[in-house]
């Protein structure tokens, strides 16, 4: 049950966990801009600062918004739809 205790420990300090996560994100983007060489980039677009951070975030938001729009356009339906 130690594992459950660890999770509980983290859950009780949710604010600190969030802070750590945000720090990691910022550090990641900053390191990428300052230290990682772009020699391996396939396209010129990737030379934009922190390109992949923006790609990840915008991609995620687009997927969620598009899917939800698609779902509510008539694809999602009641669970007993096929039952009658």
């Amino acid at each position, binding site marked *: 049950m130690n594992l*459950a205790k660890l999770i509980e420990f983290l859950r009780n300090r949710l604010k600190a966990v969030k802070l750590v996560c945000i720090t990691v994100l910022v550090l990641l983007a900053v390191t990428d801009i300052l230290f990682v060489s772009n020699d391996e980039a*396939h396209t010129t677009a990737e030379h934009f600062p922190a390109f992949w951070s923006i790609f*990840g*975030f915008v991609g995620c938001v687009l997927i969620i918004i598009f*899917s939800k729009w698609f779902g509510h356009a008539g694809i*999602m339906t009641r669970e007993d739809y096929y039952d009658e």
Partner: protein
Amino acid sequence: MNSFWLHPSLILILGSLLVPLVPAGPMKGWLKKGYLCLIPVLVFARILTMAHGTFGDVHFPGVGLGLSWTLVFGRVDALSNVFGYIMSLMCILGTLYGLHVKDNGQHIAAWVYVAGSIGCIYAGDFITLFLFWELMAFSSVFLIWFRGRRESLGAGYRYLLVHVFGGLALLAGMVWHCNVQGSWAFDESFCNLAVHHATPATYLIMIGFILNAAVPPLHAWLPDAYGEATFNGSVFMCAFTTKTAVYALCRGFAGMEILVPLGVIMALYGVVYAVLENDCRRLLAYHIISQVGYMVAGVGLGTQMAVNGACAHAFAHILYKGLLFMGCGAVLHMTGESKFTELGGLWKKMPWTFVFTLIGGLSISAFPLFSGFVSKSMIVSAGFDEHKYWAGFLLLLASSGTFLHTGLKVPYFIWFGKNKPKPETWDRAAEPPWNMNAAMVIASVLCIFIGCYTPYLYRMLPYPTLAAEYHPYTAYHIFETLQILLFTGLGFFLLLRKLVPDPTISLDMDWFYRKGGRAFYWIARKLVQSVDTFVGELYRYAGLIPLMLTAKVSGLFDNYVIDGAVDGFAESFRAIGRRLRFVQRGQMQQTLAFAFAVAAALVLAFLLLTRWSPLMTLGRTREWLVGTHSTASLSVFQRIDQGRSGMRPYRFYQGLANAPITLRTDGRQPVTRLAAPAQQSVGLKIEAVKTP
């Protein structure tokens, strides 16, 4: 090569036949458990020890009609071995996971299913491939039916129908292709099917393959079936059908351009539907479609790097997807629920299952140090190398979606989230039995091991030297991946409210056959009803009135003459009916099994008769002999030369003496020694007919 070559599938099939004979009682059940572990381990060991080459040829000399072919059961090379290795490894894990299942049928179905998959992988010709291909479909459907719900019955039938359709497309394509090629060999070369000059036959075979790979629009069977199978049935199913299809595509369709857009569409299609999904196992099923999309795109790219990537990704995918299905299967097994809306907060009860599922989620999302990272990137890199930038970027977008659902949505809404399960669900929840945990531990360790020590996987790939030169762990690649994934995580938590699952289902391509089937029934009913009414009216006017008239006459006759005979007939029909009724009374599955058995018996009987029975053999006719003849009738025997068994009576003709009998031969057979006087006296006429 005629020496005996032990096919790994044979071990599984024979092993599965013995499952019911191993008693579950002795040694506190350990005898049975030991046996269940032993057979998959033997299969794995057999595959490890197989040398490269072609083995297990079975030559069928012409079965009377001039057809002859050679079945090749064992074509062992680098490509088939990497798939054989991972399939047999997954068989060990899947069996271990379901070790406590008491129902023998489930073990048998699972093993025969794996045997089908391994048989396809080592098949060296189209016929063998097709036989094992169908074996997979017909054995795996039982993994759905064994769940025993009303919904699983329907899902199983739909699964079967779709796969029969795919199988028919495959068969038609094969026959067409082989007719053109004049050979049944499913050749070793990667470009055997002439993908750059594809014929309709090539497309038919491709449809058969991509249906099993669940390429939209032929994919709806997958979430339908995998969401409805038993808790460990899905663990098996998620590995074998789609990845065997990926193998077949690697073998025959590397470089088929159309597979690149299809693969990219798949990768995104699965992601979109996963957002909407409320059932965790259906969500994982949609992510199979998404992940197989990468492999299909890799096959379409067709470069050595891309084919390496497709194989590596299939290998890694089988392990992490198995792990994910094990995690969600454990939740289903322990709580009886698989819907996000019925689950939540399980971290208190099943923390280790959470960790294993998370490892699966991180692997599928291609986090550095996990297996997906070293396999998925090969395909994406191959896309960029081929200057298909749109494919590369869209596949990376799909990997953002993968982390969004499998890495975040699944663990969050099952183990955390604001939702509270029902009290009875909550009480049932606990860590699963030891064997399920053990299977998850092994799968987790392998996922991390593959991610950390790349030569293990890379050495097995079809182009190992090229794979050895590929280095996934470069600073740029690591930062690219981490940024995509972690910023996806940011998006997830910011838009969490939008992602809370709704208790809905999503319409997919199966709508067409689920609703279309009903339309068909409706039309059939209406049509049948109107025809029935029409016939009824016709019968009344044309039949009934004259009948009433004759009835009186025949009534008299009936009373005295027929009664006795009819009673006898009726009695015998009742007896036959009693015997036949047991066939109809059982469940549909039993009826179906019975029908398969009858069909198999018929095929066997046909083979036996055509090969060994003198009655149907077309040998060389030597002579026609008149047997008996009188003024009223005559009988004629044809005698043929049966080779080693000597002369045998062949066919027996009987007719009236005064009406000449015409015997036809194909003109090549000598029709000589019929005693001339006899021929004249009985009016026998022998006519040679040229066959085309």
